[in-house]
């Protein structure tokens, strides 16, 4: 049976048989880096294509359909165009920060990839504070956005960056609380442990209503954190033209664009891990036969399937809802999401202590 685990195992044994351990470590690091970058490119192109298709069908259009079957090479062609475009730096911009900002955003997105478990035993770094690491590092990207907004020497960019700052700082809270409510159940921050704890059913089913509430809060908060509509105030096309990346062009713009999609992928994979069991197949209690059949589907497919479902959900939001106003955005967080998630955490703790979950 196809599994990613087998491939890594095979590479590892082959390298160990031929080289000494230092070289193996180095070679594996390079391989992982290359694989991560390749994943980035593929994900970026794929998700942009998916977004355009989803948007098109919801808007009774066809979407890209000229280049390749169903237009799947359209995004590659767009990337090619962006690479060939001139990367303008506006007059009066802080050139160093202006050029640095897209890389910061990109690198942050790359860093968060480390603890995510893509398939059974297929993980770059099984760190014991995995979830904490993800929520800590992912909020660093706001620094890149602030840099971009400040250094562009453009008032629209500045406004967009400031909005983004306020937004990410506040929504980090409820995203964190939603994550904690699952951590309460598992008792571990390690991604692998969280997945293992869903051996006999996913948390969204096992955790009663509190788990569902925290899932809803999580999905709202991460939509806001990734600056997606209806929380795309940092970009707010009709208000701030393009917000913090108004002045960017060419590949530097493409990096922002790519980082947005990578961030969506990452938060959705975290959501899938916490609430839908990551790569864990759909198991129901101790129905051995059923569980066994489900195990035949490769774990990587389970993982990507769940993640893409969540990404689709976020895209669905984007193409349905109008944008919030900046004060309403903060109202939503501080008056609704935060109290609800605090109360929900309390409820979840009670559930965990009393052992009411399955």
């Amino acid at each position, binding site marked *: 049976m196809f599994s990613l685990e087998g491939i890594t195992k095979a590479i590892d044994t082959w390298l160990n048989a031929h080289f000494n351990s230092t070289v193996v470590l180095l070679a594996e690091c390079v391989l992982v880096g290359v694989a991560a970058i390749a994943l980035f490119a593929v994900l970026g192109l794929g998700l942009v294509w998916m977004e355009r298709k*989803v948007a098109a*069908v*919801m*808007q*009774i*259009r*066809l979407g890209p359909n000229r280049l390749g079957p169903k237009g799947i090479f359209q995004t590659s062609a767009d990337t090619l165009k962006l690479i060939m475009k001139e990367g303008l730096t506006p007059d009066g911009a802080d050139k160093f920060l202006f050029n640095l900002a897209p890389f910061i955003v990109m690198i942050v997105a790359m860093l968060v990839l480390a603890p995510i478990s893509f398939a059974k035993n297929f993980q770059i770094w099984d760190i014991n504070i995995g979830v904490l690491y993800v929520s800590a590092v992912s909020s660093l990207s706001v620094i890149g956005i602030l840099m971009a907004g400040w250094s562009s020497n453009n008032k629209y960019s500045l406004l967009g960056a400031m909005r983004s700052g306020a937004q990410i700082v506040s929504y980090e809270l409820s995203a964190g609380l939603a994550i904690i409510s699952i951590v309460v159940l598992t008792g571990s921050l390690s991604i692998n442990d969280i997945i293992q704890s869903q051996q006999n059913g996913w948390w969204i089913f096992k955790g009663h209503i509190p788990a569902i509430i925290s899932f809803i809060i999580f999905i709202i908060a991460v939509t806001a954190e990734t600056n997606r509509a209806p929380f795309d105030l940092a970009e707010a096309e009709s208000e701030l033209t393009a917000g913090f990346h108004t002045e960017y062009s060419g590949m530097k713009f493409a990096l922002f664009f790519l980082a947005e999609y990578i961030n969506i992928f990452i938060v959705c994979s975290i959501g899938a891990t916490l609430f839908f069991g990551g790569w864990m197949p759909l198991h129901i209690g101790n129905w051995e036969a059923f569980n066994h059949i489900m195990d035949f589907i490769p774990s990587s497919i389970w993982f990507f399937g769940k993640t893409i479902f969540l990404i689709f959900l976020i895209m*669905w*939001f984007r*193409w*349905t*809802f109008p944008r919030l106003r900046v004060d309403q955005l903060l109202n939503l967080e501080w008056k*609704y999401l935060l109290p*609800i998630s605090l109360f929900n955490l309390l409820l979840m703790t009670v559930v965990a202590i009393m052992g009411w979950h399955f």
Partner: protein
Amino acid sequence: MFLKEYINDVLKAAKSLLTGMKVTGYYFTHRKEIITEQYPDNRATLQLAERFRGEVVMPHDENNQHACTGCSACEIACPNGTIKIINKFDIQPDGKKKKAIDTFVYHLELCTMCGLCVEACPTSAIKMANTFEHSVFNRNQLTKRLNQPGSKIREGVE
């Protein structure tokens, strides 16, 4: 009391958002609602309105004859100076001179497709064609001569 209102607010909001998502979800699952037309590909089946005003043409019959007497009514009616008529004098068999058109110049680049020239024409010599693909690489190509070379006025048209 406050709590009840609060929960009500949240539920109402959630309901309104879900109804919105229901609509987009419906379109996502019903591809037959797509209304896009694949324009350059569907040239063969493209249905154009018969009256669509694309450009002014002068219909000629099989004997290379048209109905334009060169009265300049269209030239006067045109608000933009799109039409210029250059007349000549044909010598009739009985020795009389008769006014006829030499060149009917039509500047497509100035035309706003208002249709006033067609309205003004007393002999229905010109009409609006429903062609619409007018882009050319050279602007000079937009200045057209509507009467075909060697064409004559149809017998009996005054």
